[in-house]
């Protein structure tokens, strides 16, 4: 290990250099920033008790290297923050021995930092050795700490000793340095033969210190420990770590292969990305193994041969074995568990009842509960009360389980099992890649639905017949101009949940997970029963315009899904690359279903994305907040007058804008029962328009539908005899565009005046 400084600082605990650390850059920066920011804001953070950061890890996502890199980065900076990294050791069997190990590690890393001797971090020293190495400024408190430890050690209260060790960092005199403790692998903290809930003790010790800390581990365990330690009322910050994305995984494979001098091709690289499920640990393990054996991974065959070797006896095997041994240390129970998990792999056999499992495992309820908890933490099952769903979606995990079952339980010859696993892996490889390519090429239905967000779009984008009649054969510019001028608009719902149609009905499985979506939504963004609607969206495969028979089939299929799932208010939307034949269009209209071509879908995607960008463009934006009442709307009117003058609006238009702003402010004041009695205004200046948004907090007024304009662009707010209801009518008359934006509370009215129309 190289402890010398290089361009990126020390490499001390990091297994790779900073320049080789791929895929978690933002997370690394956040961790370092968390340690350092707490520096200046310690008191404020303490007061809010938000000094903790929980790093929630998806299984196999990998966090240790991230924390090690954080350690190295902080160590290199030589600031007031002293990094302490402690991974709960799997070899320890009791909370006491783990706590003592922590005390030792803490002192070792602290003294290493204070002496600026990185090499000390990896030394194996006793506490007495460490006292001798302590810098002069720290000798007194370290000596006292070790003496106190020796007294505690021979006491009878194990829990006291654990707490003593875990709170050792609190004994650093505040003037000297401030520890930043990072605990890794919290899921290992529940030692089976210990009565002390170690993970909870860790959380309590860290919280009571009032200093910044990081607690990392499998997400279910970390959240559980935090909750049981009473973190519900002072929630620490959260960082979620998933497996690497495709791009990061590709980069990691390329970099590691180069380092290990392993030859790979683009094809094998992409296969490894998919097959190893973006796990940094599996990726580096495989490439290290290839490097050690001087293997080239330049064909599917070479990859799968190494994969099977690793699975049957290499690093992958050791990883899965250690997980199983942690869950079930007893060989007989482990064997029963493997059988049980193996038998639950086929579809339809994945749900079990607690009592059934208990009988099959032939264990008492407490032991079964303990096993289930550990399986749940590893996300190998979902355990929620009586029903247990066996998940284990990882193909690697399934391969491991099957091979273990055949070898250990069925006693099949090893050569046969190896051959079968490799044959399966080879047969699966092209399918894995094909599935990946299909997924990459599929329409991003869920992403698009997520952007709907109550936006207004031309209705013809959902009616292929109308669209084709108006724009087929036209240029992109002509189509865009036509759509811009189209006043027949439809307001999209606000989608709050999307899932693949396959999750609702297995009848959709043959078309692929990505081909259909069930999206739950509220129309108008108003959260009432009447406004609840479910969109059933499907991509229909066809190289030509889809005919009526195929449309009929899909409509029936989706109606069936709706009926089976008890979905009442639904909207079907079919998307076909080349659109729909005339009879199919008629059928869609008869059934009140939408139908779009790929071109319409792409245009919709562009327009909704542009809407998002426009909303987030704040470069030419003015904001004004003032209290309600006391004629303060005149301040807004004066402000908007100045802005409108800059845009060269005519005097008449300026007066119209001012009047509209005044009316909007009055509306906001009168209707919202605002708790803060404030009016929030945004003036957005663009080349050809001025957009003004007037918002307030408070209730959603019942007489506002959330639509200043209805779906057909008609006014929904009726003029009434009540003269006090004139405000909105005036605004709509004076401005070119008026719409209520969806807000959770209060009102937000957006109005636009175009320069070309008014000046």
């Amino acid at each position, binding site marked *: 290990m190289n402890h010398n400084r290089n361009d990126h600082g020390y490499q001390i605990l990091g297994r790779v250099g900073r320049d080789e650390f791929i895929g978690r850059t933002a997370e690394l920066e956040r961790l370092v920033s968390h340690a350092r920011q707490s520096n200046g804001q310690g008191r404020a953070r303490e007061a809010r008790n938000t000094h903790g950061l929980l790093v929630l890890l998806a299984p196999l996502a990998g966090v240790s290297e991230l924390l090690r890199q954080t350690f190295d980065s902080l160590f290199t900076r030589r600031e007031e923050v002293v990094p302490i990294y402690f991974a709960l050791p799997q070899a320890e069997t009791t909370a006491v021995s783990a706590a003592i190990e922590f005390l030792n590690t803490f002192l070792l890393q602290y003294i290493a930092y204070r002496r600026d001797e990185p090499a000390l971090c990896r030394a194996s020293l006793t506490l007495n050795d460490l006292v001798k190495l302590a810098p002069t400024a720290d000798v007194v408190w370290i000596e006292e700490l070790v003496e106190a430890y020796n007294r505690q050690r021979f006491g009878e209260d194990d829990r006291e000793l654990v707490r003593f060790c875990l709170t050792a960092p609190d004994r650093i005199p505040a003037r000297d340095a401030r520890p930043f403790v990072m605990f890794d692998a919290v899921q290992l903290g529940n030692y089976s033969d210990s009565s002390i809930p170690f993970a909870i003790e860790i959380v309590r010790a860290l919280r009571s210190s009032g200093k910044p800390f990081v607690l990392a581990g499998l997400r279910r365990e970390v959240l559980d420990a935090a909750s049981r330690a009473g973190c519900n009322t002072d929630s620490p910050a959260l960082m979620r770590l998933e497996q690497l994305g495709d791009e990061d995984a590709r980069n990691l494979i390329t970099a590691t292969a180069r380092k290990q001098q392993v030859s790979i091709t683009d094809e094998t690289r992409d296969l490894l990305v998919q097959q190893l499920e973006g796990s940094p640990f599996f990726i580096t393990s495989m490439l290290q193994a290839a490097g050690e054996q001087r293997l080239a991974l330049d064909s599917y065959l070479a990859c799968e041969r190494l994969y099977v070797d690793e699975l049957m006896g290499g690093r992958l095997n050791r990883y899965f074995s250690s997980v199983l041994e942690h869950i079930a240390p007893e060989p007989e129970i482990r064997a029963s568990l493997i059988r049980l998990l193996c038998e639950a792999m086929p579809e339809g056999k994945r749900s079990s009842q607690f009592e059934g499992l208990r009988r099959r495992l032939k264990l008492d309820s407490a032991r079964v509960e303990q096993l289930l908890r550990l399986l749940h933490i590893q996300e190998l099952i979902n355990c929620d009360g009586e029903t247990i769903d066996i998940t284990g979606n990882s193909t690697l995990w399934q391969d491991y389980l099957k091979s273990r079952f055949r070898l250990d339980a069925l006693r099949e010859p090893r050569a046969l099992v190896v051959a079968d696993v490799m044959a399966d892996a080879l047969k699966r490889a092209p399918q894995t890649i094909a599935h990946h390519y299909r997924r990459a090429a599929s329409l991003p239905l869920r992403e698009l639905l997520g952007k709907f967000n109550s936006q207004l779009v031309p209705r013809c984008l959902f009616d292929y017949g109308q669209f084709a009649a108006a724009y087929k054969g036209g240029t992109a510019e002509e189509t865009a101009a036509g759509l811009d001028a189209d006043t027949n608009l439809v307001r999209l719902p606000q989608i709050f949940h999307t899932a693949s149609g396959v999750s609702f009905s297995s009848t959709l499985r043959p078309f692929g997970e990505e081909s259909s979506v069930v999206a739950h939504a509220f129309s108008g963004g108003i959260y009432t029963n009447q406004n609840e609607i479910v969109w059933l969206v499907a991509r229909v495969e066809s190289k030509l315009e889809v005919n009526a028979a195929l449309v009929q089939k899909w409509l029936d299929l989706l109606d069936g899904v709706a009926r089976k799932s008890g979905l009442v208010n639904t909207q079907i939307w079919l998307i076909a690359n080349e659109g729909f034949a005339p009879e199919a269009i008629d059928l869609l209209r008869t059934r009140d279903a939408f139908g779009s071509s790929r071109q319409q879908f792409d245009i919709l995607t562009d327009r909704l994305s542009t809407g998002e960008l426009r909303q987030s463009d704040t470069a030419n934006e003015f904001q004004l907040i003032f209290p309600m009442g006391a*004629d303060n*709307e*005149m301040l807004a*009117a004066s402000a908007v007058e100045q802005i409108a003058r800059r845009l060269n609006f005519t005097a*008449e238009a300026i*007066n*119209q804008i*001012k*009047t509209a702003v*005044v*009316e909007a402010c*009055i509306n906001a004041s009168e209707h919202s029962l605002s708790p803060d009695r404030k009016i929030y205004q945004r003036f957005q200046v663009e080349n050809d328009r001025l957009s003004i948004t007037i918002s307030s907090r408070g209730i959603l007024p019942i007489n506002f539908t959330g639509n200043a304009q209805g779906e057909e662009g008609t006014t929904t707010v009726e003029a009434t005899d009540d*003269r*006090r209801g*004139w*405000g909105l*009518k*005036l605004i709509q*008359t004076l401005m070119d565009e008026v719409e209520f934006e969806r807000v959770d509370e209060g009102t937000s009215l957006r109005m636009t005046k175009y320069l070309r129309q008014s000046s």
Partner: protein
Amino acid sequence: MGESIKSNVRSRCVGTTAVVYASDYLNKLTGERIERECKKQLDSGARALVIDFSDTELVNSIGISILLGIIDIAEKGGALVVFSEVNNETVQLFEMLGLTRHVVIAANEQEALSRVSTSLPQSQAMGH
């Protein structure tokens, strides 16, 4: 011919015609002040109201609704209402909300007074 500035609303009487001056911003508060002043003038025997908008830059919908209330009251009492020196933008607003159907709009106060004198019987206009 006397002038009153009580309750911040300037007004004066010309025979049985009361001239009431609206402020720069006609909203709920200033509208109600004008309303009160107009009622007072009507109660005091005024047979016509001239509301002068020469200082008025901006009118809001609440202000307009109050003006309609004033017109209602005046009509019920058989009094005439004339608006004078209303800027173009405000005239547009009045038109949008139908106010111009119920009221005469004059270019300035002088024209308003002469409209009143031609509309009312001479004896009423002169206060006899």
